[in-house]
């Protein structure tokens, strides 16, 4: 796997000339890759731009398809549908709880998988792999089968249980990847300096794992708040944001949905950009 022992790259006579080729080539040819990438980005952003633009559309009724003029009234009336607000709050509550529970369980799993050899490790990897790659409709159907067989009423709790189940493996994999790259000499150093295993974990290991745990938790949050298919199977009468939107399509989507979508998008975008800027400053 290691590529550093390729002889050609090491016995280069003049290392400075070697750094040249890429820019030299791009000056000669048109950089089609760039245009292509921007074209793909435009494609990716098309429905988002549409959603944002039409949150300002002065439309009558709920068939928000043609442009009728600019207005801010949907933003003023953003909370006009109490059901929609409740659904959004449900989604947030479930996503936060999922983030915490899956974050803890997944981190423990990831730590064990990355650090130890133990019996059942292969099975654990296999089950996690299956849970990640199983299609959502299968997971939803299977969970509903269980709840029906056990006579469990579906609702908030069953949604939460299901969300933790399908996100926990993502957290575990993220944390495991980080554990595998940890430098063991740092922990050895801590222990040489007299730290107990617990102190070593708290002061050395945990801070080094924190970014991965955070990242895993955020993945769990994002997967949970966005989930439609699994949730639709195990939700009972409880509405989440995606479920409400879906239900509303039958009668036409009110512009408030565009408003909420735009606001969620804006919050996510700002957080992501802040995160990148901070990371860049740290580096």
């Amino acid at each position, binding site marked *: 796997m290691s590529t550093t022992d390729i002889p*050609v790259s090491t016995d280069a006579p003049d290392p400075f000339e070697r750094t040249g080729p890429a820019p030299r080539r791009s000056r000669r040819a048109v950089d089609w890759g760039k245009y292509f990438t921007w074209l793909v980005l435009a494609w990716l952003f098309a429905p988002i731009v549409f959603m944002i633009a039409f949150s300002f559309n002065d439309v009558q009724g709920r068939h928000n398809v043609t442009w009728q003029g600019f207005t801010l009234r949907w933003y003023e009336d953003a909370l006009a549908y109490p059901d929609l607000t409740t659904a959004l709050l449900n989604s947030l509550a479930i996503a936060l709880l999922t983030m915490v529970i899956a974050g803890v369980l997944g981190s423990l799993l990831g730590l064990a998988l990355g650090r130890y050899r133990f019996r059942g490790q292969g099975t654990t990897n296999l089950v996690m792999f299956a849970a990640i790659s199983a299609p959502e409709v299968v997971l939803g159907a299977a969970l509903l089968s269980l709840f029906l067989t056990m006579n469990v009423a579906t609702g908030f709790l069953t949604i939460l249980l299901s969300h933790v189940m399908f996100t926990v493996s993502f957290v*575990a994999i993220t944390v495991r990847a980080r554990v595998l790259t940890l430098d063991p000499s740092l922990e050895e150093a801590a222990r040489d300096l007299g730290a107990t295993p617990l102190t070593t974990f708290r002061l050395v290991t945990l801070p080094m794992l924190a970014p991965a745990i955070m990242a895993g938790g955020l993945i769990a949050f994002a997967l949970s708040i966005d989930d*439609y298919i699994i949730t639709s199977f195990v939700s009972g009468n409880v509405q989440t944001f995606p479920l409400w939107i879906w239900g509303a399509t039958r009668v036409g989507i009110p512009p408030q949905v565009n408003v909420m979508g735009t606001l969620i998008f804006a919050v996510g975008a700002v957080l992501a950009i802040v995160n990148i800027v901070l990371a860049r400053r740290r580096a």
Partner: protein
Amino acid sequence: MAMETTTPEGGPSPTPTPPRRVAAAAPYFLVLPGWLWLAVFFVVPIVSMVTMSLMSGSLVRGFSLTFEFGNYADAVATYWGQILRSLFYGGCATLLCIAIGYPVAYWIAFRGGAYKSTYLLLLLLPFFVSFVLRTISWGFLLADDGVLLGTLKDIGLLPDGTRVLNSAPAVVFGLAYNFLPFMVLPIYAVLERMDHRLVEAARDLYAGRVQAFVRVVLPISLPGVFAGVIMTFIPSSADYINAKVLGGTHNTMIGQVIESQYLVNNAYPMAASITFILMAVLLIGIFSYARALGTEQVMEAQAR
């Protein structure tokens, strides 16, 4: 009982100082909660789904386990069309994702320079909008009298009767749209970590640009493509949101059948057997595929 399994040289950093018994049990304490959760809410549900698929009866009379294997025969006989269509649409969407995603991943990894993370962010940003909302947005955008088609028709670039919605290509493009990041990210991860001097070396040894790509870059990036294929093919062939929003009534996919059998018709045994067939087709295919490539490797590529 578990003591002899953890040897000091077992993990990358052995923890020898605490009493050996505790150290040997440590991994089991760590994994236990996660194991329990996955067992109760992943393994047991699959088992109960299989059990359910062998039941007979109705919602009114109640269901009982009669090992009714006929459910499977019925499911295949009735819904083979939708199953094949789902696999076909999923496959097309996956190919489209490779065709679109590979060049993008390649360009960002090799030419992104200082802006790599910015490009990745731009690529992921649209997915901050909910999956359902994104798809519905496409539906509105592509509506017959909507912003796109309506305008093009008004200018006269398209004949009046043109429709995009409710067609197979609309569904395939919708699927490819929604699962594109799952293809781009694994490929990008592999290309980004690759030693770029290898390409220079190939060029120095008189490989043309095409040859350098085909014989150096492509083989190195294949694990990323394999991971991407798993990550896009499975969800796209089991998805039904795109088919419902963009495909109308003539492009029903198998997920839709499962959903309506479970939630509308309450025909649980039938629904469970269709689901099991879908799962078997997808998972057996994927497991043999992953076995051939090594599960660890594929999962690793997914994690990045």
